[in-house]
């Protein structure tokens, strides 16, 4: 086919060009000779014939050029020539080239960094077969254990229901269940002295088959492993644990490690890419058969009825309809609820049951808490970094436009010498692409650094993470693509200039260079105005996020935030029984209170503010609940000095005192919300209240505590809360304290070592999961707001800087170009300050137009951010005013120097300037 022959010919001509030259010469010479011979035959003399023949043929070089340019290899040579020319030109103005590449690198790098994170956090599918067939029952957003609820109303399931569906999956290919949270387990590896703690998951035997995930070594769990309650201590471990804690030992399969004091056999190792269906910051390290739950979660009755702690997932057959599958699932749950209710089924109850449903949600991308937390922020950020890149491109477009105007003479000359317009335009696009591709390359480096920093922030310093900063093929293609697009965007700017230039002698005359050709000045103005609009937008967005963060951080919490240290311990996995707990608690309190620098110490089940919630239903005496009224409250178990240690104020009655022992009357302290709700006459103190717990009540209310923030920093109204004294609680779980609170006199971080030492001296094997200050703990509740406000302000400042540079450049260039005109004006009587005002006025006009467009546009965009803000309106006047003033100041500052330069022009010099 001609294409192939042409390709070969072109390559031959590139590679062996002397041969091709020789052929061309021969052909032309042959033609010439024939022509001469012919003319001689017609009767001319040899010299005449030769002259005539040569005149006919014209310039042999031109003919050769025309023949050559038919093939594609000429375009190739032209391209190489243009590339060399471009590089020379760029090197000739190193300052411009450096600034251009740097600003492109920052813009492209930011875009790549955010894209990398979005790919991993928001977009990535599970590394299993056919992830689109996986559906979770409900969104699986919660993790925990509930009792006394209806199936299908909370998105958690009990063991017997999970088994039932596993054995009879109905229309699904298969269903599996897994613990909705990863309990920390205590691990002892033979040969090592220290125990380590890591998260594990309990899963049904068919879990890995449902996910269609294969192991790296050994085997995964099978349904046969998951039959006998507490009978089969086996586990599958993660790649990360295998690498870090077992030194990637290739013979690990079949070895035993001790978990929660029980020897477990390792069945296999999962590959590096596998990270579980539901995952958060910390990847799961162990998978246990669900039947081992009592040992792993240190709770004997967890597999019995009314313990809702499992999430479920099904592999659907995609040929079935989703609604049919949903109906089947709902009917299964309703049947279960009916059976659980027992004999009598009131019509109201029937109604209730008929509304039970749990939506089947796609789990193709896994269920990631990171995505829930940061997904929105990342999407907002992707828009913002795109805007920053646009601003950088607008800058470069302006610069290239200015250069195109300055090089008009060169262009006209080239056109006159026979170059095609396309070639000149092509060369300018080549220049732009060279800049943008180099910017892209440097940007990759920036992106790596930025991504690493972002991941470190999101992971809060922990090194075992599911996120990676290394770019993969898709990210690299993305970077390449936006580099090319950016290059084309600003590379076409000179084209707008060339469209006007004519290849005639008129453009060579000097006088035209001095006039302000208003048609050609449109684009720089438009670009500057759009930069003002975009920079204003970014400043406002950053301001809104900063203010929201400030609002969140500055609100009053109801408890001490600065001089408090929190330590998390897990005595149950180290073998402590409920009977041994009170002694341990007492020893810890005594030891900690004795540390110098400690004002007081207390124990609790959770920190004062925690996303984990312990709830139960309760019955205040003297209160008749309404029909279907939910009678529940948050519960906290605390030691005696809790209220002084945390600074929670007791507004009425008293806190807990030493005389509230395990044998004394059962007492509780309630919060204001509970008191006001159920005892509106203010007589809560002295009343009794029943709480559905392992320990029997009734409980006497001895005090009312001030409301505090309990679950998060956002929610509007506090919930009713009951504080229970830990010494008065019994039961398999309730006597354990998992949190130690230490109120310090000075800086809490100074006391960390002492606390560790004190705990170690009581029991060196007591697992201490982490120690941090209350402030650090609080910061975790604002991590996504902190992230986004820091990033948006950084990008806003970057955008403003870029716009300032752009404006300065354009104004300087304009002043230089109008030097002649300014000289004339001054010679005709204009004052220095008049000239300065003339230049300033131009940029103020651009600023005004930019604000006129930008403010309404920003108002429209700000509306979409309403859900991200806290206690403020998206149209906050302070933020808008600050942003507007900021832009105005920057605009004036950027124009100041050029305008002064204009004012100091010497007319005599200017008039001769061209």
């Amino acid at each position, binding site marked *: 086919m*001609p294409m192939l022959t042409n390709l070969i010919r072109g390559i031959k001509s590139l590679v062996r060009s002397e041969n091709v030259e020789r052929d061309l010469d021969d052909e032309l010479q*042959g033609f010439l000779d*024939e022509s001469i011979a012919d003319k001689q035959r017609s009767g001319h003399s040899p010299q005449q014939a030769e002259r005539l023949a040569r005149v006919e043929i014209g310039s042999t070089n031109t003919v050769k050029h025309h023949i050559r340019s038919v093939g594609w290899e000429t375009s190739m040579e032209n391209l190489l020539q243009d590339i060399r020319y471009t590089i020379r030109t760029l090197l000739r103005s190193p300052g411009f080239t450096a600034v251009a590449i740097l600003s492109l690198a920052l813009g492209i790098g930011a875009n790549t960094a955010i894209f990398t994170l979005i790919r991993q956090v928001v977009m990535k599918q599970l590394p299993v077969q056919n992830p689109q067939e996986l559906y979770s029952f409900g969104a699986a957003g919660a993790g925990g254990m509930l009792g006394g609820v209806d199936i299908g109303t909370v998105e958690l399931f009990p063991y017997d229901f999970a088994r039932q569906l596993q054995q009879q999956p109905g229309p699904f290919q298969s269903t599996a269940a897994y613990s909705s949270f990863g309990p920390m387990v205590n691990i002892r590896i033979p040969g090592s002295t220290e125990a380590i703690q890591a998260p594990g998951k309990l899963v049904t035997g068919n879990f890995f088959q449902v996910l269609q995930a294969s192991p790296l070594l050994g085997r995964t769990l099978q349904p046969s492993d998951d039959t006998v309650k507490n009978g089969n201590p086996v586990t599958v471990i993660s790649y990360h644990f295998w690498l870090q804690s077992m030194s990637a030992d290739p013979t690990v399969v079949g070895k035993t490690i001790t978990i929660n004091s029980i020897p477990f056999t390792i069945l296999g190792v999962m590959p590096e890419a596998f990270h579980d269906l539901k995952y958060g910051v910390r990847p799961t390290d162990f998978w246990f058969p669900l039947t081992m739950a009592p040992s792993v979660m240190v709770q004997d009755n967890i597999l019995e009825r009314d313990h809702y702690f499992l999430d479920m997932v099904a592999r659907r057959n995609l040929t079935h309809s989703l609604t049919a599958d949903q109906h089947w699932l709902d009917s299964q749950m309703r049947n279960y609820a009916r059976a659980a209710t027992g004999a009598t089924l009131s019509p109201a109850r029937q109604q209730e049951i008929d509304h039970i449903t749990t939506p089947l949600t796609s789990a193709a991308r896994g269920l990631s808490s990171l995505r829930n937390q940061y997904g929105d922020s990342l999407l907002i950020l992707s828009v913002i970094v795109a805007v920053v890149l646009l601003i950088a491109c607008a800058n470069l477009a302006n610069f290239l436009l200015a250069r195109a105007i300055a090089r008009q003479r060169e262009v006209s000359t080239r056109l006159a010498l026979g170059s095609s317009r396309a070639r000149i335009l092509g060369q300018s696009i080549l220049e732009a692409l060279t800049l943008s591709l180099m910017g892209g390359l440097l940007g990759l480096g920036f992106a790596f650094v930025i991504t690493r920093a972002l991941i470190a922030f999101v992971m809060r310093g922990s090194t075992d993470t599911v996120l990676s900063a290394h770019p993969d093929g898709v990210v690299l293609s993305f970077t390449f693509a936006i580099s090319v697009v950016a290059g084309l965007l600003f590379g076409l700017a000179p084209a707008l200039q060339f469209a006007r230039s004519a290849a005639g002698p008129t453009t060579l005359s000097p006088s035209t260079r001095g006039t302000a050709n208003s048609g050609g000045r449109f684009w720089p103005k438009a670009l500057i105005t759009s930069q003002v609009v975009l920079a204003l937008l970014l400043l406002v967005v950053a301001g809104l996020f900063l203010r929201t963060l400030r609002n969140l951080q500055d609100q009053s919490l109801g408890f001490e935030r600065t001089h408090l240290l929190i330590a998390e311990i897990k005595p149950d996995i180290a073998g402590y029984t409920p009977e041994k707990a009170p002694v341990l608690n007492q020893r810890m309190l005594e030891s900690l209170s004795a540390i110098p620098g400690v004002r007081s110490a207390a124990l609790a089940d959770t920190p004062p503010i925690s996303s984990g919630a312990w709830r139960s239903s309760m019955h205040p005496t003297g209160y008749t609940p309404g029909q279907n009224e939910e009678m529940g409250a948050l519960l906290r178990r605390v030691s005696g000095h809790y209220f002084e240690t945390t600074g929670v104020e007791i507004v009425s009655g008293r806190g807990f005192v030493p005389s509230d022992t395990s044998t004394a009357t059962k007492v509780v302290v309630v919060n204001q919300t509970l008191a006001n709700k159920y005892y509106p006459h203010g007589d809560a103190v002295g009343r009794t209240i029943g709480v559905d717990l392992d320990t029997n009540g009734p409980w006497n209310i001895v005090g009312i505590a001030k409301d505090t923030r309990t679950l998060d920093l956002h929610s509007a109204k506090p919930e009713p809360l009951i504080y229970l004294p830990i010494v008065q609680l019994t039961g398999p779980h309730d006597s354990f304290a998992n949190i130690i609170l230490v109120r310090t006199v000075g800086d809490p971080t100074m006391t960390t070592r002492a606390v560790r030492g004190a705990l170690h001296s009581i029991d060196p094997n007591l697992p201490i999961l982490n120690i941090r200050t209350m402030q650090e703990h609080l910061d975790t509740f604002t991590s996504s707001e902190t992230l986004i406000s820091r990033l948006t302000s950084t990008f806003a400042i970057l955008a403003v800087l870029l716009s300032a540079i752009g404006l300065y450049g354009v104004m300087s260039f304009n002043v230089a170009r109008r030097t002649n005109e300014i000289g004339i004006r001054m010679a005709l009587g204009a004052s220095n300050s008049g000239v300065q005002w003339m230049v300033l006025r131009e940029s103020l006009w651009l600023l005004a137009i930019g604000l006129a467009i930008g403010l309404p546009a920003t108002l429209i965009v700000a509306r979409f951010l309403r859900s991200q803000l806290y206690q403020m309106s998206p149209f906050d006047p302070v933020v808008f005013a600050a942003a507007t003033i900021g832009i105005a100041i920057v605009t004036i500052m950027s124009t100041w120097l050029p305008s002064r330069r204009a004012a100091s022009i010497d007319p005599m010099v200017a008039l001769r300037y061209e």
Partner: protein
Amino acid sequence: MGQHDVVQGTLEMLILKTLALEPTHGYGVATRIEQVSQGVFRINPGSLLPALARMEQAGSVKSEWRTSENNRRAKYYKLTARGRKALTTEEETWNRQVSAIARIMQTSAKASSEA
């Protein structure tokens, strides 16, 4: 008699027709066209040789080096099957155009003679 360059756009068609009779080299094509057109058309080599190169690129002609009548090394051009097809198509188009123009010229002449 006036010697003109060929009618615009017809150079390739004329080359194809010339080569359809017999393969020849560049000068041979020029000579033949001049002879057959009885001197009306004279092709300048600056357009002929690039045109031949273009046609070779498009695949309508094939070239090979041979010894010419004068014992010189010369590049001979030959029509390919694709070229033959192209010739037929171009000939049809040309005939259509010529008859159309002829019709237009006739009617105007009549109209002006009647007016």
